[in-house]
């Protein structure tokens, strides 16, 4: 039996993906990425390593920016942000993401909010982690209807960043920019390769060493359930409370 809830597992997985980053920015309404970045910082501090810097938009305490909403983009353009998170109403097998809508633009049949900063940050932040809990063929499509941000670019296009990994409620894929393809690395407990294939509308590679998502180490879980949950309360009180409940229910 697994030792952690799915959300805890997602948080721990993201924290491990972030390792090596000196500065992680987290967009608005992103409690799981925020928790993961806080977890990485807590782990590093516990190990007496230089901790990652966090800029969690929406937080006062965990946000260093003082130059308005342009600073996130300026900072990325300066090469001072190593990792960021994006989602997508659609994500395709080449790492293209669509945050705009379904069908023919502009009169899309379904309209989403819009591209936000993706059309810039996907080019400038080295490690963009695609995170979408829903793992279904309507999200993971063969070709997006609108490219808010492309997974790869022609060689002459300025490109310092792009997709690094794709984490869903079912699996973890790494992105291979040379091949412009995702590679399945882990499947979360309770799911099978057949299930992942059926739920993914694009073709992907499978790592020769693919495995079940490893269980979080007890010390990491303890940090998450202690310090990180309490830090998370400031920005995401509802989410922190909900996660506490889940953990309690799971333990029972």
């Amino acid at each position, binding site marked *: 039996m697994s030792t952690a809830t799915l959300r805890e597992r997602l948080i721990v997985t993201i924290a491990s993906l972030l390792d090596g980053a000196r500065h992680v920015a987290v967009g*608005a*309404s992103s409690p799981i990425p925020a928790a993961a970045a806080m977890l990485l910082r807590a782990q590093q501090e516990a190990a007496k390593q230089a901790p990652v810097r966090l800029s969690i938009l*929406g937080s006062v305490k965990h946000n260093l*920016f*003082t*130059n*308005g*909403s*342009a600073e*996130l*983009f300026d900072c990325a*353009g300066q090469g001072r942000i190593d990792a960021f998170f994006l989602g997508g109403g659609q994500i395709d097998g080449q790492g293209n993401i669509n*945050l*705009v*809508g379904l069908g023919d*633009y*502009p*009169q*899309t*049949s*379904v*309209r*989403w*909010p*819009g*591209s*936000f*900063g*993706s*059309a*810039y*940050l*996907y*080019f*400038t932040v080295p490690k963009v982690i695609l995170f979408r809990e829903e793992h279904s063929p309507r999200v993971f499509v063969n070709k997006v209807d*609108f*490219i*808010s*941000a*492309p997974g790869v*670019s*022609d060689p*002459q*296009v*300025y490109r310092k960043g792009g997709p690094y990994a794709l984490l869903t409620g079912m699996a973890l894929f790494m992105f291979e920019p040379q091949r412009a393809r995702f590679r399945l690395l882990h499947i979360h407990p309770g799911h099978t390769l057949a299930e992942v294939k059926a739920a993914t509308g694009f073709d992907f590679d499978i790592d020769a060493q693919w495995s079940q998502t490893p269980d979080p180490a007890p010390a990491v879980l303890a940090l998450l359930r202690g310090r990180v949950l309490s830090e998370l309360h400031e920005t995401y009180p509802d989410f922190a409370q909900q996660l506490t409940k889940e953990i309690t229910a799971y333990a029972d």
Partner: protein
Amino acid sequence: MASISVDEIAAEIKDGCQLAMPVDYAGVPMAMIGPLLRCAPRNLHLVGVPTAGLSFDILIGAGLVRSLETSAVSLGEAGGAPCFMRAMARGSIHMKDSTCPAIHAGLMAAQKGAPFTTLRGLIGTDVLLQRSDWKVMQNPFSAEPDPVVAIPALHPDVSVFHAPMADREGNVWIGRRRELATMAYASRRTFVTVERIVDRRLLDDEVTAAGVLPNLYVDGVALAEKGASPYGLWGEYPPDIGQLQRYAQMARTEEGFAQWMSEVYA
């Protein structure tokens, strides 16, 4: 500068006005929306700096908007913006889809008096493909092919935002929210609603002065307590998520939107 009323601010927004307002957390001038609905200017061109939410959705639902330029319209945690989505599906408004730093780049060009600034990224996106008003150009400093996108200066006719305080001379305290300064520098005229007007001159103390938009860029200040509500205002009050969710729920249908409007702006 004489302080004016919120109604007087609304009256300055005429048919066809290009009107800029800030993102959810940066002082949305909600108190101005009721008076603006009464003035009912037509064919507004809205600019969301850099994204937009409830204020845009209401004006779209009320039929006052012809087009908008922003990088997203949503109600945040409360979900999509229903009137915006409906109008887009119908094709009754024109959306100039952007990306956050392109909105900032256009305003920064205007701040600098430059015809344009360049922005990395964008190449290969459908955002760029749809923006015939942007140009791809060769970086003149590169010997290799190096395409870069030029974003023209964005000069809104009017910008309006809500802030914690102003002094009697019309100097407005914006704190860390410096995109409000850029928006005002770039705009032909700027009006501000505030929680309070203070007697001391905000420029006289170096500490408060650091967060001040001087009256040089401000054409009128109106008092409006809780003027961003149901959005929050930094350092003052949090957003009222319940109110936003209630709007999101009701505005899913035109009837629900009409009912919400009659309840709130009767």
